[in-house]
């Protein structure tokens, strides 16, 4: 699961696209998902997300992310279906409105989360940061912070799994199948995770400082991020998605 947030090398259209266009496309898919309440539109957006994974040449990764999110979605679906009281009863305490709301929430979650994971799979984090500085004129310190946050996610996930492994080896029942018990055991682990995170971020900050972080300007990057035909098509598609979702709404 730690490789979900990691870059997958490739030469697909999505790999070659300007990172800012990819951010814009992701943003528009999310906007479209929040503009519409139609289940059919949300299903179409989900299909589009998965197709983007196929176009990027990473269908297995896209479906693996989808499967991971689907597990969380099932839990959310059950909660929504059980607690929404509006509408006509369908079965036991579950209402038709409850099922509809649950479906909308879950589909929205999937539609919004998938493109973020996909953009990280087809774009180097440094390209995201540099293009934000160059094209969007975001101050480098902020772009760097965003890039570092993304880069640290798999590192922290790996650290957490290492901590759980070490704790299981000393007798803490992290290998139990009881999810509630496992959640209870997670609390004491916040200390080692926090300590290692602080140490890692401290070390990274020092390393960045000694390598002249403060001297960097918007022109320091050698790579130029052009805007081609593919980017234009993606931008048109992005705007069309928002317009379509707003119109169908």
């Amino acid at each position, binding site marked *: 699961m730690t*490789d979900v947030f990691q870059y997958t090398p490739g030469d697909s259209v999505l790999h070659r696209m300007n990172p800012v266009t990819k951010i814009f496309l992701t943003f528009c898919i999310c906007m479209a998902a929040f503009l519409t309440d139609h289940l059919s539109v949300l299903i179409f957006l989900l299909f589009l997300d998965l197709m983007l994974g196929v176009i990027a040449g990473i269908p297995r990764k896209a479906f693996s992310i989808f499967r991971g999110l689907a597990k969380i979605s099932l839990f959310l679906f059950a909660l929504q279906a059980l607690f929404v009281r509006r509408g006509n009863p369908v079965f036991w305490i579950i209402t038709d409105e409850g099922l509809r709301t649950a479906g909308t929430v879950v589909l929205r979650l999937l539609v919004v989360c998938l493109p973020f994971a996909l953009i990280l799979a087809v774009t180097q984090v440094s390209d995201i940061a540099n293009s934000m500085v160059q094209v969007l004129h975001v101050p480098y310190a902020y772009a760097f912070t965003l890039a570092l946050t993304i880069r640290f996610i798999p590192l922290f996930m790996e*650290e957490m799994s*290492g*901590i759980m*492994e*070490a*704790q*299981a*080896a*000393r*007798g*803490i*029942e*992290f*290998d*139990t199948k009881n999810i509630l018990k496992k959640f209870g055991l997670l609390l*004491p*682990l916040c*200390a*080692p995770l926090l*300590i*290692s995170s602080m*140490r890692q971020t401290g070390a990274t900050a020092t390393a960045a400082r000694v390598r002249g972080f403060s001297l960097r300007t918007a022109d320091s990057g050698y790579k130029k991020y052009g805007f081609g035909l593919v980017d234009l098509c993606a931008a048109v598609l992005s705007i069309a998605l928002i317009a379509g979702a707003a119109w169908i709404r």
Partner: protein
Amino acid sequence: MIRVENVSYSYSSGATTVTDLSFHIQAGEFVAILGENGAGKTTTVKLIDGLLRPTKGRVLINGSDTARSRVSERAKQVGFLFQNPDRQICRNTVREEIAFGLRAVWGKKEEARIKARTQEMLDIFSFSGDEEVFALSKGQRQQVALASTLAVKPSVLILDEPTTGLDYRECTHIMNFIRDLNETEGTTVVMVCHDMEVVLDYAKRALVMAGGRLIADGSVHQIFRNVPVMEKASLLPPQIVQLAVRLGGEFSEADEAGELAELIAKKRKGG
């Protein structure tokens, strides 16, 4: 005691793998696993403790298959000291940290026994108990992790690069303690180590790995003199062994500086 039978393992990412490993470790042995980075040493010790499940073959500890029981249940029997002590430590003070591991294994009902054993471990490792764990040095944190691991009196101790990042004094302190434990209590020790001097000083037997395979198994003395094996594993024997081998003849079997010096002095006297 530990029986590894035709074990193979590959990570889902296809990274480090071990292939067709087979060896047997008797109770009370002190075994070092050697090899360059990526040779599969850590994977092997994780397979022994059941932290990883073999894709092929099986690992038996005292006759029971590690794949059929939970790692946490095995903590009474097998202690695992990780390279990074911070992954094991999760309490604020040394006393709480040692007691935390004991509670997990012995249960909360054994509070009096846990208290007594915690104090015993604090005395052995010369801690007052009130020290803030995360304010200690890496060597001291490694000692806290070791104290916590040994508190439950495991019959097998697995050490994954226990001396990394420690200074000479800290390293000697920890390794001498482990040797005493091996010699007096009969604790079986399996150690992954990159420091050949430490291996020469403490281990009796060495398993050499290269490319995920076991390429040699023998006494440390023999292994360090087996040039083809050492070259294949990209390892260099300790300097004292290199010197003894280069001197040749009666000197070539010396493993310690003192032993070598005595042999040279004897030779000089003899003319």
